[in-house]
C-alpha cells in the first residue's frame, strides 16, 4: 500500500508555504521537496521534522529526498534538514536545480543573517556540504536509488530545471508534479509526461479554479508601465530574488529595449547576472524551443542593455530601471533604493511576486503609503506601486490535461486553497472516474494497491497439469494447485511433493469429518446399502465402492453408518475425507443431509 504523509507544507491562499510531502511506497520512504516558509522568522519557517525523527534515525528511515525545483518553498529547508537535523542520505534534483538551488539558498541566508545576524541558521559551509549530497537526475533518465526504488524525471516548465518525478517500487508508482505549467512561456516549454499510469498522481493546485489570462497580456502590461515611467523621466525599481523571475523579466525588457531602441539604462544589482546567464546558457536545453532555435544566431541571455549596478548609480539623474534584491523589500539593496526613490511620484516600484507580512513589500502592496522607519521617522511613499504576478502554474485546464496524460488510478491535490481544491476535486472525480484526495497539512492518506508479484512455476507441476489432458487456453482461467515457496525474495509454485522434498518435511494426512443424521429404522447394513445405491446413481463419474467391512468409499471419502445411541429410528452417518477431496466431501455431505430417496417398500 502506498501511504502519504504530507507534513507541514503550503497552506491555503497567500501563503508562501513549505512544501514537504512524505510518501511511503511499498515500504520505501521518500521525501518530496523540503521547503521553507518565508512568512516566519523562527522555527516555524521549517517543516516540523520531529514527526519523522520519531521513527528513528533520519538517514535510516528515509530512502531519499527529491527536490522538484529551486524555489525556496520547495528547497529552502534542505541545508537545515541535511546539516542541522542530520539527514545524510541522497538528495535528487535536476542539474539546473542543482546549480541554481545553492545560489538562492545563499541569497536567502545572507538576507536572514543580514537582518539581525541570526545565529541559528544554516551557514554557507552547510549549504555547500548539503549540495555535495546531491545526485543529478536528467530528464527521462531512470535512476536506481537502490535495488528496489527507482525515480524518473519529466519536464515541468514552471522555472528552469523544474521537474515532475515518478517514484517506482516494483509495480507500484507515484508521480509528484511539484509546480508545473502546461503552457509554454517566453523562456520555458510546457510540462509533459507519458502515459505512465501511476497508482497515484500528486499534483499542485495553486490555480485550481482559475483559468489564467494569457501571460502575454500581463507582459504587455508590465512593459507598458515600465515604458511610461521611463518616458516621463521616472525610475523603476523591480525587487527580485537573485534568479528565476528576474531572468524572465530581463529577457522581456531586453527585447523591448532593442525593439523600441530605448536608451534608459537597465541595471541588475546583485552582480549575479553573470552567473545566472552562465547557467541559463549552460542549460539551454531546458528552455523552450524558440530560445534553443535562436541560440545559434543570438543568445537570449547575453544582455546588451542590462548592466551591473553600482550603488552610486542610484543617485544618478534621469530615468533608469533597476532589478535589486531581495524581492520583498525587507533588507539590503532593494530597500535602500526604495527609500531613496519612494518620495518621487514619477518613480515606480513593480513587485513581481508575493510579499510576506513583516516586510516593506507587504506594506506597500496593502496600500500603506506612510511607512514608519527606524527612530519613528515616517517615509511617505509617493512613487507608484504595482503588483504583477508572473508565476507560472498550471491552471484548472492544465491540471486536467496532465491527469489525462498520465492516467493515474488516484489523484491527490496539494499546494492550494481548500475551497478551490474542493471544486477541482469534484471535477476530476467526475471526468476521470478516479478517487481524488485533498489532505490538510499533517493528514495521511493511505491507498490500497494491487501489486503484481511474479511467481515462477516448476516444470514438474506444469507437466503434470498438461498430462491431465487439458491444453492451456489463454481466454479461460484455470485452477492450478501447488505449494508456494518464498525464499530469497523469490516466489515459486511447486508440487506439494517437491515442496516436501525441498523443505525436508514429512507429509501429514488431514481428514475432515462430519456426522449426518438419517431417519431410517432399518439395520445399519441396510442403511449403508441404500447410501451406496443412492450415491452410485448420482455420482456416475466417480468410483463408488461398497467395502467388505460395511463402509462406502467415494475417492478418498469414507462413509460408515452407526446406530443412534438414544433414537433407534435414526442412523448416524460418519463421513470423512482428505483436503484434496474437500469439494467432493462437502458436496456429498450436503447431498446426504437432504436424505435418501424413498425405497420401494
Amino acid at each position, binding site marked *: 500500500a502506498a501511504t502519504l504523509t504530507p507534513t507541514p507544507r503550503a497552506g491555503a491562499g497567500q501563503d508562501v508555504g513549505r512544501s514537504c510531502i512524505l510518501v511511503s511506497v511499498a515500504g520505501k520512504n521518500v521525501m518530496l521537496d523540503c521547503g521553507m516558509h518565508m512568512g516566519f522568522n523562527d522555527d516555524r519557517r521549517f517543516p516540523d521534522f520531529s514527526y519523522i525523527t520519531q521513527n528513528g534515525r533520519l538517514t535510516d528511515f528515509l530512502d531519499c529526498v527529491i527536490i522538484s525545483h529551486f524555489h525556496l518553498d520547495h528547497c529552502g529547508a534542505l541545508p537545515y534538514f541535511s546539516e542541522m537535523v542530520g539527514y545524510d542520505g541522497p538528495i535528487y534534483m535536476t542539474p539546473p536545480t542543482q546549480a541554481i538551488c545553492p545560489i538562492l539558498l545563499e541569497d536567502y541566508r545572507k538576507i536572514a543573517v543580514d537582518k539581525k545576524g541570526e545565529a541559528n541558521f544554516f551557514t554557507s559551509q552547510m549549504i555547500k556540504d548539503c549540495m555535495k549530497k546531491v545526485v543529478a537526475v536528467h530528464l527521462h533518465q531512470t535512476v536506481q536509488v*537502490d535495488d528496489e526504488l527507482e525515480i524518473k524525471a519529466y519536464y515541468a516548465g514552471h522555472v528552469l530545471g523544474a521537474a515532475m518525478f515518478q517514484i517506482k517500487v516494483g509495480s507500484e508508482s507515484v508521480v509528484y508534479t511539484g509546480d508545473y505549467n502546461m503552457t509554454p512561456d517566453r523562456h520555458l516549454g510546457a510540462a509533459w509526461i507519458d502515459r505512465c499510469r501511476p497508482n497515484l498522481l500528486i499534483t499542485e493546485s495553486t490555480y485550481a479554479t482559475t483559468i489564467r489570462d494569457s501571460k502575454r497580456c500581463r507582459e504587455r502590461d508590465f512593459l507598458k508601465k515600465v515604458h511610461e515611467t521611463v518616458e516621463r523621466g521616472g525610475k523603476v525599481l523591480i525587487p527580485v530574488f537573485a534568479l528565476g523571475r528576474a531572468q524572465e523579466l530581463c529577457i522581456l525588457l531586453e527585447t523591448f529595449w532593442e525593439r523600441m531602441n530605448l536608451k534608459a539604462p537597465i541595471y541588475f544589482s546583485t552582480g549575479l547576472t553573470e552567473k545566472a546567464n552562465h547557467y541559463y546558457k549552460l542549460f539551454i536545453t531546458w528552455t523552450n524551443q524558440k530560445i534553443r532555435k535562436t541560440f545559434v544566431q543570438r543568445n537570449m541571455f547575453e544582455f546588451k542593455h542590462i548592466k551591473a549596478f553600482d550603488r552610486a548609480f542610484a543617485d544618478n539623474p534621469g530615468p533608469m530601471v533597476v532589478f535589486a534584491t531581495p524581492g520583498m523589500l525587507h533588507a*539590503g539593496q532593494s530597500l535602500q533604493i526604495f527609500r531613496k526613490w519612494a518620495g518621487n511620484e514619477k518613480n515606480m516600484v513593480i513587485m513581481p511576486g508575493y510579499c510576506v507580512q*513583516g516586510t516593506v513589500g507587504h506594506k506597500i502592496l496593502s496600500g500603506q503609503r506612510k511607512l514608519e522607519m527606524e527612530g519613528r521617522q515616517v517615509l511617505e511613499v509617493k512613487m507608484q506601486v504595482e503588483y504583477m504576478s508572473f508565476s507560472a502554474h498550471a491552471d484548472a485546464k492544465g491540471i486536467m490535461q496532465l491527469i489525462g496524460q498520465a492516467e493515474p488510478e488516484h489523484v491527490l491535490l496539494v499546494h492550494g486553497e481548500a475551497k478551490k481544491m474542493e471544486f477541482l476535486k469534484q471535477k476530476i472525480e467526475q471526468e476521470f472516474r478516479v478517487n481524488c484526495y485533498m489532505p490538510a497539512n499533517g493528514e495521511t492518506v493511505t491507498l490500497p494497491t494491487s501489486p503484481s508479484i511474479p511467481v515462477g512455476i516448476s516444470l514438474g507441476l506444469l507437466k503434470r497439469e498438461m498430462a491431465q489432458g487439458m491444453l492451456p487456453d489463454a481466454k479461460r482461467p484455470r485452477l492450478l494447485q501447488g505449494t508456494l515457496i518464498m525464499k530469497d525474495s523469490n516466489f515459486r509454485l511447486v508440487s506439494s511433493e517437491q515442496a516436501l522434498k525441498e523443505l525436508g518435511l514429512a507429509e501429514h494426512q488431514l481428514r475432515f469429518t462430519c456426522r449426518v443424521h438419517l431417519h431410517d429404522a432399518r439395520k445399519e447394513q441396510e442403511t449403508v446399502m441404500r447410501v451406496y445405491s443412492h450415491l452410485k446413481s448420482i455420482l456416475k463419474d466417480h468410483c463408488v465402492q461398497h467395502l467388505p467391512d460395511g463402509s462406502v468409499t467415494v475417492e478418498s471419502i469414507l462413509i460408515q453408518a452407526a446406530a443412534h445411541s438414544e433414537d433407534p429410528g435414526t442412523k448416524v452417518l460418519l463421513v470423512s475425507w482428505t483436503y484434496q477431496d474437500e469439494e467432493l466431501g462437502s458436496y456429498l455431505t450436503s447431498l446426504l443431509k437432504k436424505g435418501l430417496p424413498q425405497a420401494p417398500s
Partner: protein
Amino acid sequence: MDPECSRLLPALCAVLADPRQPMTDDTCLEKLLDWFKTVTETESSLLLLQENPCLVELLSQALKFQDVSSRILSFSLRLAGIFAAQENCFQFLQQGELLLGLFGEAGPLGLPAWNVPSVRSGWIQGLCSLAKHPSAEQFLVDCGAVDTIFSLQEDSSLFVASAASQLLVQVLSLSIQGRATPQLGSSDGDWPSCAQSIVGYLEESLRSGATPQITQALKVLTTTFGRCHHSWTEALWMRLSPLVTCLLEKDTVPTAHSLADLFLSMARSPTFGSSDCDLWVTLAQTLSCLSPTQAGPLALGILKLHVCPQALKTQAFDVLLQPLACVLEAAAQVPGSSGLPDGTGSNPTMADALLASTSSCAALLCQSLAHLGELQALPHSPRPWPQVLLLEATMMTLRFCSGSAVPISSVGGRLCGILASCIRVQRAALDFLGMLSQGTGACEVSSSVMSHTPHPSSVPLHVLSGWDSADPWVPCFPEAQACTFPAGTWKFLGWGCWGVHPLASVPGPQESVTQVFAILLEYLRSPESSPTVLKKAFQATLRWLLSMSKACGSNNPDPHTQPFLRELFPVMQKRLCNPCWEVRDSALEFLTHLTTHWGGQPDFREALLASDVPELTQQLLQDPEAYVRASAVTAMGQLASQGLHATPSGPEHPGAKQKSLPQELLHILSLDSEGFPRRAVMQVFTQWLQDGHPAMAEDLEQFMARVFQVVSRDLDWEVRVQGLELARVFLAQTLGPPDCPYAVALPAATPPTSPAEVLRTLGRVQLLEFAFRALFDCDRPVAQKSCDLLLLLRARTAPGGGLQGAECNPEAVTVEAALRAWQAGEQGQPLGELVPEVVVAILRALDLEGLQATLAESSDHVEQSPRSLLQDMLAAVGALGGHEADCY
C-alpha cells in the same frame, strides 16, 4: 500593552469578527497569538480583557459558529485558551459561559467546521493553554472534553493526534497532582474520577488488539513517564504493566518502536530507573523478542542510560555488534566448518536479515555502524570496547562493498554480491572507521603486548570484546560469554587485494593501522568511489592521521604516516583534477586540514613538495566553480603560511610572468564575480596579518590600502564585514597591546606609537575612509562591525583627556557633511586625507553608543513589531482580492 496597539485593537477585532472580510494570511493570525502570549506573560489577562472589551466581543462572535470561518474559529479557540490560563481570567470567561460555549459539547464539535483539522487543533491547543489550574480540571470534566480528547487520539491529522496525546497527559497529571490523594492503588476508587477515566481508556486501548490504538496509548504513557516523575506514575505502571508486557508475547511485536520508546522513557525516569521494578527484565525480554532492525535503537537507548544493570548493557551491546559479527563470520567461514547449513553463523536471524536483500542488509549494517559510532563518542561508551573486532569488521564491510575481498565461503560470496558498490554502506562504514581512530594508537603498543594476541579459530564475542578503548591492545577475558565468532584475519596481498585465512590470528595493532590506511587509500584511489563516499574517505583519513599523530606526539613520528603520505599525494593529484566539483572541493578542504596540522613536519613537506599538489592547487584558483575557487584560496593561504606554495617563477617556468600569491589573491578579490572566493581571500589576508606572514610584511601599508580600497566597494556585505575584521586586526597591531594597570612592566621592544601617528597610519591605508563609510552601510552587520571598530579606535586614540579634537576646523565640518550624506544613503565624496585632530573630532561628535544600540536590533524590527502587524492586518482588508493567490 502598547497604547498604540490598544488603539488599533477594536478595529482589528471588528475585522476578524466580520465574516465578509476574508483573512487569507494565516501567518498573521499566528503572529497575533504569539503577541498575546507574550503580553499575558507579563500582564494580567483579566485586566487586558477588561481594558479591551473588543477581545471578549471577538470571542463571543466566535460562538456564532455559522458565521465564522474555520480560521477565525481556530484562532478564537486558541486565544480563549491563552487568556483562560490565568485562573481569575478563567473565572471571568466562565461567568459569561464563553468557555463552555467554545469548548463544550454545544461548541464546534458537531459542526461542519469540526472536519477542518485546524479547528480541532485550535480546540486542543486552547485546552492545552487552559489546563493549568485546578478549576480547569473540573471544567474539562463538566464540559465533557475528556471524551472528545479520547476520540482525537486517532485523528486523521498527525498534528491533531499528537497534540491530543500531549493534552491527555497534561489532563492526567493535572487531575492527579491537583488533589492530595495519599496512595494510588490498583482499585478504581483510589483514583480521581477524571484520571480513572483516562486510565480506563488506556487500558481499553491496550486491550483492543488494534495497532493504531495501542501505539497511541503507548505514546501517551511514554510522554507521561518522560514528563512526570512523581510516585503516582509508578502506581499507573503497576496497573498497566500486565497489558503492556503481554504485547511482547505476540509472534511479531506490532508496536515495537513505541514499546521501545516507552521502556526507555521509563528507564530514564528517576521513578523507575532506580527502583526494584521489573523494568530491567522487561527490557531484556524486549531486546530478545524484537527483530534485529527493531532492537537496534532500543539497544542504543539502553547503552546510553546512566543507571542500568551490566548484564542488560552486555545484552544490548551484543545486539549492536551482531551485524558486524555476522560480516566477519561470513568472511571467515570455511564452507561447512560451522556445521550450520550454508554457514550462517551463530545468529541465524541476523544472518537471514543480512542476506535477504540489499535493502535489508544495508539498513541493518548502516544502523549498527551509526549506533556504534554514536556510542563510541559517548564519555561512558561500553567497556570493554571491542576495538579490534570492530576495526576488522568495518574494514571487511568496506572490502565487501568495493569488491576487493575474496570471500571463501558461500555466505561471504552472497554478502559480497549484496554489498557490491553499495554507497550507503560505504558511507556509513567510512564514517565509523574514522571514529574508530579514537582509541587506536599504534605507538602505544609494545611488542610484548602483541604477543598476547589470542589465536583461536573461534573466539567468543566477549573475549574479542575484551579490548578496552582506553588501552585497546591489552586483552582481558571476562567470564560472560554469549555467542561466538570465528576470528579471521586478512593477509596483505598487495594494495587493494585481500584474501581471508580463517585460522590465522587477529591482526596486531601495527598491522591494523597499515590495513586501515590501505583500505582508505583504496577508496581514495578507486575510480568507482562516488563523491559522497570520497568525502567520507577524506574525513576518515584525516581522523586517522590526527589520531596517529596525537598518539605518537610531535617528536615521535608515526611509522605509518610517511609511507602513507607518499602514496596519498599522487592520489590527491588525481582528485584535484576530478571532473566533479564536489571531489575537487573535498580534496582541497582535506589538503587545507593536512597542511594546518602537519605543514611544519619535514616528512609531510617532503612528500607534498615532491608532488604536483601545490601547482594544481594554484591552478584551481581559476576553477569554473566558485566553491572550488574559494577552497583553493583557503588551501593556498594555508600552504603559503607554511612556505609550501609553488614559487611564482620557478626554474621550470623561466621568464614566466606570474603574479605573486598576494597579488593573485588581490586580483581575485577585485574581479571574481562570486562572493565565496572573495570572502576566502579576506580570511586568508586576515590570517596572514595575524600570523605576521612575510608576504604581508613587505610594503604592508600599500598593500592594505589597496585591499581596503577594493573591499569597501564590494557588493557582498559579508566580504565588507571580512574587510572590517582585517581592519580590526590591523588596528590592533598598529595600536599595540592595551595599557593594563596590572601588567608586569617589561621593557617594551618598541616604544608605543602615539595616537596621532596611529591615526595618520590608518588614514594612509584608507582604513578610516572604509570604516566611516561602512558605519552607514545599508547592510546592518557591516555597520555594526564598523561601529565596534570605531568605538575601539575612539577608546584608544581619543579618550577624554587625550588628543585634542578640532571641532571647529573647516575640514571637520566637511567630513561631517560627508558622513551625513552617507547616512542619508547618498554616495558623497571621498573623505581624502584626514588629519588626526579632525578624526578625533569626528569620533567624538558621532553618537557611536547610540548607533550601536540601534544596530543591535534587527533591521526589520519596525516591520516585525506588534503595532506593524496590526496595521498590516487592517491595511490588508482593503487590499485583498486584488492579488490572487500566488506563491512563486
